[in-house]
């Protein structure tokens, strides 16, 4: 796990954000493989993203760097974010 630059209280998982929420990536958790793949896709520390669709179960869709990325629920839990503007 990579150190979060935000205090723990203000971070949440992408999976917890409602549709339409905007946030900034502040940490990735999980193995090197997963973190590397997701970082190559643009989920780097400080990257702004918007949750495009989250129905509370099943996969979520995230808009990031001009693309739409579908993430399984488990993967969406491994990306920690801070709400936009909180930084």
């Amino acid at each position, binding site marked *: 796990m*990579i150190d979060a630059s935000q205090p723990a209280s203000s971070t949440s998982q992408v999976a917890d954000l409602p549709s339409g929420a905007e946030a900034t990536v502040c940490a*990735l958790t999980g193995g*090197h*493989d*997963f*973190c*590397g*793949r*997701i*970082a*190559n*896709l*643009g989920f*780097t*520390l*400080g*990257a702004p993203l918007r949750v*495009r*669709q989250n*129905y509370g*179960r*099943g*996969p979520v*869709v995230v808009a990031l*760097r*001009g*693309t*739409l*990325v*579908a*993430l*399984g629920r*488990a*993967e969406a839990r491994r990306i920690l974010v801070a709400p936009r503007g909180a930084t």
Partner: protein
Amino acid sequence: MSEPVRTSRTLPQPVAPPVRPNLRLVHCAGPEDDPRAAAHPDALTVALVGQPNVGKSTVFNMLTGLNQHVGNWPGKTVELKTGVFEVEATTVKLVDLPGTYSLTANSEEERIARDFLIGERPDVAITVVNAAALERSLYLVAELLALDVPLVIGLNMSDVAEQHGIHVEAHVLQAALGIPVIPLVATRNEGIRELVAAAYRLALQPAAFRPNRPAIRAEHQPILDQVVVLLDGCACQRYPASWAALKLLEGDEEVTREIQGSTPPALWEEIHGILLKHEDAYLDIAGGRYEWIGRMVRAAVTSPRAGAITHTDRIDRVATHPVLGLLLLLGIFGLAFGLTYAIATPLSEWLSGVVLTGLIALADAVLGTAPAWPSGLVIDGVIGGVGTVLIFLPILAVFFAVLGILEDVGYLARGAYIMDRFMHLMGLHGKSFLPLFLGFGCNVPAVMGARILEERRARMLTILLAPLVPCTARLAVLAFLAPAFFGSSAAAATIGLVALNLGILAVTGIAVNKMAFKGEQTAFIMELPLYHIPNLRTVGLYVWNNTASFLRKAGTLILLASAVVWILSNVPGGNVETSILAAVGRALAPVGELMGLSDWRIIVALLSSFFAKENTIATLGVLFGAPEAGSALATQVAAILTPGARLAFLAVAMLFIPCVATVATIKQETASWKWTAASIGLLLIISLGAGVVIYQLARVFGM
């Protein structure tokens, strides 16, 4: 792998005045600076690189058209597409590298792409980027710049970007990057010629390539330098030291393994010590690349106001909605099959009518005086086989056209997204839906399509399940026999049998996942492309490549099988009743008995489906002496079976062991006889089990 097609063709004449490669540049540098700068090289190798969903294959298709060859990378299960075109009397070999997001060895595709760029050293690389997702597309460019290959950028999909309110100034981007940036709308063939001209110029003049290369973050530079120095001292690997050092810092498994194996232990200890202290550098390197990209695009891109609603947003409100999206998927599914049969059925009838009549007349004319057996072999055996192929070909072509359109529009990824929840029950995720869906066309591409799955476990399970998807050949058998078998309840029986297949697929998936894989889950990360208008050429070539590979199989296996069945049914003695085939069928009759299928001809028809599923009908035709495969044949077959046995027969035909082409593909893709045998054994047990259960249940209910 066979040799790529060597025929060549000149580029279509453009509407705009042609951009002539600027040969004066060559003279400025002086040919003595670079031996390759001679005026007109005979041949050039150009690599086409790009991330998925940037329109790379459209560019490839526009450049090479039918002069393309689809094969496999030597010893790999990744598709290799090469093509040839001519520019300025130079033959250009274009190699379409697999679509990859980065050049870190996360997957086979990425390894192949970078090994080609490093090992084969193409004269120039054309990289296609998506203007609507510029930052993400440029990530690959940032990686490519670490390699020593001259680059030209094709800025594609500007039209899609404009629809989303994104405007990219190509010349501003070009100035920032120091790389030629050519605006393209590949689907309309705009800018392709200019792109080629720019690549050609660069190939003649590689020394002119002085790009602005991304630098690693300041805090990591000394570490990188240290590793480079250590690697330089040993010069023992095939990679350039600076690139290898960067990949070591990124924790690239393959490069790490290779360097570890090729450096003296003491040196490796030293390098490894440095790497251990900076284990998380890979995230900073990725972050650093995106920061660099941010600086590059800042002046060139005008972005839309935040929260603008796009076409894609509007369509996805339905297409990715958990309930509406599922209904839409089912609707599209139904439409795909409705359309396939509505268009293909008349085509099939026309084709088999015209061609078969002609062929039989021809055979009669040629073999008129010949003895009875060769004309029997040709007319009933071979031409009967041709008939089966012809019935089936339009169905396959139309299905692939529908699939190609859905893919090119960007819808298929949504289907995968919607199916993710269901696929999780089998320990798979949404991406597995894509190859399985392909299976409705033909199981061979379905098994090959499992390559898109990153994890071996998911790939193996998907390959195991793919033959349980009823392919068009089996659906054609079903559609042919069901009306005569079940009369007015034919539709219900057909739907029931397809549902049975899919139900068994789901149960098998859940069971295998629980038993063999202990319910592990795999990561689901998939890009949803923006919707765009499909390109006819891309769809056309997709259909062509898929039907052509079917025809190659049909041209050999189906005709051969059909001829073999005819011979076996006529030897010895020229009488079906006493033939070898009859003997085999009768020997297996006790097994058939359990399913109400005691007639040996029915058993032989099932066995012959191993050569190709559509053979079931051809064989019945030969054995019942009705080569035309009309509805009379179905009625004849129905007459010798009880309703319960008819249902059992179709269930077994639908679930029976995969055809020989699929088996060969399974062996090739899994590289394991054990998996191949497991796949055959599993389907044999499932199909016979289903047949017995259905027949015995039907008997209980008095059918």
